């Protein structure tokens, strides 16, 4: 096992890696910006090195500073966490050149997966289903019609140069096509000076489903099942679950085999997440791969009993999967994670500042991953995630009940958090029923503003309750 490891990250994930290292007997080196001097990752690491001023670009994203810290601390390995340098292939290359083990896939694989179209083609080649669409620009309405027929309606036309919805048209039948093609082309030409269009399968109510994989350095790959991440706002996940209610054991097993074959062929190593859209019929379409540990990895840990960060470290040390996971993987119970952000629960404005009271929930089936504490400070320079609240229950009903009571017992004062938002989502009938999709939050927030308009006192009372709550 590594003797000493540097964590090139901050916040809860830095502390998460420190916990894993402590359990494996690895000495830890934290790096920190001047804004994080009193952070818990600095507090609990064996050593800590200040690498720059508060701004990420001058500290956590400053490759020479991080590498230099690794060199003066004389570490064997660097764990990049998520975000920051975790998917930066150049950083992984510098680590390699500096003879420091980067805990993650080789830079070549990270680079491949970072180029979306190349990644799509690599997946397609390995028979992983991708969202069907035209091969590049449509030359004519007739070609659009051919593609649409082969893919099946509905399809969506998109402007090659586009964005922001302009030049986009959903086409639900053959008859609509000629007219909508013309309209989209004209709109695209007007908006972007370029009328080029392409076409893709359109999913009305997609779910975001992702598979957690582990790959050792000997060509062995295993899938640890899926996570349901459809509860998002502006592509930011808010709540994640495992398993997905929509996933049949047969499909899970098939996908496991497919991913195993595909990632083995690509030469994938370490932990990774393969993201899919699921259509209304339960079919999956590859979107992209994240070549790092994810924020939401604890829900998979809860239902499989596997410590993913420890697995990452053991893989990076060269251990084979057969040693790390001697027993067959099985999914037991249901887990839910709520991301507690330092944000206003209705306006979503970031809420940096000093935390005056911080009381985390505990008890049966409750896990909290956080680097915050009473009198801790949420600096304005970084992302707003301050804690992850994860619950595990024998089924989704128990997990939801547990999450509700844990949210109720999670007291944060001094800043705004998304706790009240999560409490309302957990009470929402559509969420409870489980038949949601990535458009859920739009509908939920619309419902909420309607309700607030009807009962203007309520959100005020909730806000007051939150403020009143003592430590």
């Amino acid at each position: 096992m590594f003797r000493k490891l540097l964590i090139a990250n901050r916040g809860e994930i830095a502390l998460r890696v420190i916990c894993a290292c402590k359990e494996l007997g690895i000495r830890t080196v934290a790096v920190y910006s001047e804004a994080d001097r009193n952070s818990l990752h600095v507090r609990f690491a064996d050593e800590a090195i200040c690498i720059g001023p508060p701004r990420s670009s001058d500290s956590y994203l400053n490759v020479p500073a991080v590498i230099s810290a690794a060199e003066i601390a004389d570490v064997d390995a660097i764990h990049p966490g998520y975000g920051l340098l975790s998917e930066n292939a150049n950083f992984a290359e510098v680590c390699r050149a500096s003879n420091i083990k980067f805990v993650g896939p080789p830079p070549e694989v990270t680079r491949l997966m970072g180029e979306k179209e190349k990644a799509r083609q690599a997946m397609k080649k390995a028979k992983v289903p991708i969202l069907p669409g035209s091969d590049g620009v449509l030359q004519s309405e007739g070609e659009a019609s051919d593609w649409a027929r082969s893919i099946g309606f509905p399809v969506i036309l998109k402007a090659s140069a586009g964005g922001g919805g302009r030049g986009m048209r959903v086409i639900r039948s053959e008859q609509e096509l000629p007219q909508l093609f013309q309209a989209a082309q004209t709109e695209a030409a007007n908006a972007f000076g370029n009328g080029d269009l392409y076409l893709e399968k359109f999913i009305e109510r997609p779910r975001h489903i992702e598979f957690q994989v582990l790959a050792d350095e000997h060509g062995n790959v295993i899938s640890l099942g899926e996570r349901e991440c459809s509860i998002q706002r502006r592509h930011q996940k808010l709540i994640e679950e495992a398993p997905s209610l929509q996933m049949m054991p047969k499909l899970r097993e098939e996908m496991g085999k497919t991913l195993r074959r595909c990632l083995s062929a690509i030469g994938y190593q370490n932990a990774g997440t393969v993201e899919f859209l699921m259509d209304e019929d339960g079919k999956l379409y590859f979107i992209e791969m994240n070549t790092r540990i994810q924020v939401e990895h604890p829900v998979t840990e809860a239902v499989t009993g596997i410590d993913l960060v420890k697995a990452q470290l053991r893989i990076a040390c060269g251990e084979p999967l057969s040693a790390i996971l001697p027993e067959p993987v099985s999914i037991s119970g249901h887990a839910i994670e709520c991301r507690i952000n330092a944000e206003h629960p209705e306006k979503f404005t970031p809420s940096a500042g000093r935390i005056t009271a911080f009381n985390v929930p505990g008890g049966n089936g409750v896990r909290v991953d956080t680097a915050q504490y009473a009198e801790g400070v949420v600096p304005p320079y970084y992302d707003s995630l301050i804690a992850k609240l994860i619950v595990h229950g024998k089924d989704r009903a128990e997990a939801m009940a547990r999450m509700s009571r844990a949210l109720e017992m999670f007291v944060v004062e001094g800043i705004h958090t998304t706790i009240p938002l999560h409490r309302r989502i957990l009470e929402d009938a559509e969420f409870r029923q489980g038949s949601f999709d990535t458009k859920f939050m739009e509908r939920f927030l619309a419902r909420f503003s309607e309700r607030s308009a009807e009962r203007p006192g309520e959100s005020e009372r909730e806000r007051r309750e939150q403020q009143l709550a003592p430590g």
Partner: protein
Amino acid sequence: MTPEEIQELKELIGFLRENRIGEFEFERGDRKVRVKFGASDEGTAPPVDWARMMQAFGAAASVPHHNPPPARASAVENSASAAPAAASAAAVPSEEHTADLHVVKSPIVGTFYDSPSPGAAPFVKVGDTVENGQVLCIVEAMKLMNEIESDAGGEVVRRLVSSGQPVEYGQPLFAIRLR
């Protein structure tokens, strides 16, 4: 509040008034003071002597981010060999008059060298007078030798790290008495 504290407070408020401060907050450890004066009482505003005020209140405030949190002290203690001596900030000569001392800090993480090459004479010695922009030392980072220039002119009164020692960002390297 103790009588001493009340006396201190009186002096503080007198001082704040003299200087026509509108609002004032001070915090150190578990002590906090916040003062906000009432609506303007007319009169001219003499310039504030901030330097004096800072001295009165804040040896800590002058280089606040070099105070390691309590835990770091023990972490460093546990790993004295390899860790950069974050605690060495404590070595800034607090007993001397720090008001006219300028601290040159490391702008990068790396290894400190006092001379251009092993065995060569050091760039500067205690007692030397240096100019703004004069090279004081080298910090090696990723095999690159980075010359660190003085950002003030004056007399070198203290070298705060030894040659070959790792330094972190912002770590004090030299204390210079300003001319």
